[in-house]
């Protein structure tokens, strides 16, 4: 990457380094992509709040030189909703894990998407619970192992893109940590999008998911991501079909929806003005 390097340090909170993330973990790549996106968008850092839930992804807020909220497991979007409504000028970037967003926090995820409130969810999907040591997640692919599915998972794999689309998210994209150049592009686009935006990023967890499933170390896992995804944009008619199939084989990546629909805070501001209030003025 040509635009990464010393300049990105100003986006990071250096006293909090090094991160808690294991060597080879993809989450650092994602954090770097977020910093790159902030740099490209040239947003005033004083107007950015980075939020997270609980888990490896949830540590993201600690590493940025912005105001930050590290909240409770799965429920970060509730905090984000209150924060955005209280101060609509803020740009909110919400880091969620796959267990965080799709298991304990699935209820909050669908309603934030349904309201189309203007914030950006970066869904770090490493297919496993990393912080607690490698337990099965809703995203653990069928037949794959974890410490709580030691004989292979017998549960269908949950697709975050399907869920986001069904719930009414207006910007939905998926990429992988292998797609190093695409990550900041999609994140920038998601931040600029005026509504609920989700970018799911497949991230490698060599420590648990990789080791338990004999997928090799981080470079091997990045190649695995490359070899097990198809670009949905090139095959737009197949995309939805493919997501419902075995996710291990052919996971589509790309942008699945760009739609402008009334945004929640704007809707509320109109309601308030209609009642003689000055909300958002």
């Amino acid at each position, binding site marked *: 990457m040509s635009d990464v390097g010393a300049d990105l340090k100003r986006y990071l909170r250096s006293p*909090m380094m090094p991160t808690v993330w294991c060597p080879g973990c993809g989450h650092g790549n994602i954090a770097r992509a977020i910093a790159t996106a902030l740099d490209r968008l040239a947003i005033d850092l004083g107007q950015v709040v980075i939020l997270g839930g609980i888990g490896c992804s949830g540590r993201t807020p*600690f590493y940025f030189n912005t105001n930050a909220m590290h909240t*409770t497991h799965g*429920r970060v979007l509730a905090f984000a*909703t*209150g924060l955005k409504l*209280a101060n609509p000028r803020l740009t909110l970037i919400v880091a969620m894990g796959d267990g965080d967003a799709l298991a304990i926090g699935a209820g*909050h995820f669908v309603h934030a998407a349904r309201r189309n409130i203007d914030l950006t969810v970066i869904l770090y999907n490493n297919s496993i619970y990393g912080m607690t040591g490698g337990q099965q997640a809703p995203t653990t692919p069928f037949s794959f192992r974890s410490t709580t599915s030691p004989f292979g998972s017998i549960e269908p794999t949950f697709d975050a893109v399907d869920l986001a689309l069904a719930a009414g998210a207006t910007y939905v994209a998926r990429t992988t940590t292998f797609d190093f150049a695409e990550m900041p592009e999609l994140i920038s686009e998601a931040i600029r999008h005026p509504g609920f935006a989700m970018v799911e990023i497949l991230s490698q967890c060599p420590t648990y998911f990789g080791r338990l499933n004999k997928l090799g170390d981080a470079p091997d896992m990045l190649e695995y991501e490359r070899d097990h995804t198809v670009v949905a944009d090139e095959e737009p008619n197949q995309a939805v079909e493919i997501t419902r199939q075995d996710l291990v084989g052919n996971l589509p990546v790309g942008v699945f929806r760009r739609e402008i629909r009334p945004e929640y805070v704007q809707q509320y501001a109109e*309601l308030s003005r209609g009642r003689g209030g000055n*909300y958002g003025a």
Partner: protein
Amino acid sequence: MRLVQGNEAVVWGALASGCNFYAGYPITPATEIMEYMARLLPGRGGVFIQMEDELAALGAVIGAAWGGMRGMTATSGPGFSLMQEHIGYAAMSQTPCVVVDSQRVGPSTGQPTMPAQGDVMQARWGSHGDRPALVVTASSVKEVYDTTRLSFEWAYAYRVPVIILLDAVLSHMRENIELPVLPASAELASPSGDPELPFGSHPFMPFSAATRTIVSGLAHDESGATRGSGIGTANEQILKGAIRQIENDAPRLARCRADRLEDAEWAIVSYGITARTARSAVDLLRADGVRVGLLELHTLWPFPEQIVQALAQRVRGMLMAELNLGQLVLSLRAAAQGMCPVSGLGRADGELFTPEAIAAAMSAEIRQIEVGGRMSHHV
């Protein structure tokens, strides 16, 4: 003067206190608070939002506080149980907010429309770990208004979630009260403090361009840092400081009403809706020549130990009447330190006490103590 419902009085008290954010989830018997807020807040430039559950409701209130708004939520037993996680988060992150729990019979779904006082211990000790607690109650619609005003003041003064305990009867009861004229919209003082020290004994500072605060439920020090070998000690100091501050101010925080206690030999202690019944029980007993009075507690936590101790030194016995199977009587007995006998009268069947039932329980205790006293005299 106009007829105001208990739940409505919460709303007027909150708006008069500058509350401009409400997030909630419908639940009997607290729902009217949310319905009034839904009607009033948009026109006042405030925010109302119905969330997907009670965890989300309190989460949104906490987020709004850091966004610079003054927030509250209201619920009842099942929702209050769900909120415990975020009551702990609010305590840990020192986020000012107000939570109303209109109590109904529990556990679980219980009797949704019937009054109870079974959440007094959960209001103090709910959520894992140790935390400072400010819990208040009321026994009339006017007091609901006053208590709500006080709760917002205390939430910001002490940076804690203040819990207001009502019950199904008080929430739905209507009484004539004088409501002050509300200012058109809330004028909130802009916060000031050191952006480098957002926690501990320092004032609450919402996010701004000047701050780089990390709000977290993890153990942290006054700067918000969550790392380092001394972090456990630093976090314990913040919690101890917050708990001590409330303990030190306990005499000021201990709101209560003494009714005919000047010459009393016996005392009934009660709170909330039950205190109204207890007042009538005192009338009945006084008519029979019994020198009894009532200590009505408005602040439940911190428990008014000094007031109770002073009373225990000069009466011959106390009775706690409450709508649960024996909760606050434990604290009353502990505070009385054996200086006088303390008995409890409780029920959790969804009915209020009659004045006769409380009077009878007080009389029974008096008989037992007097017989016991005579017997010990004979021995």
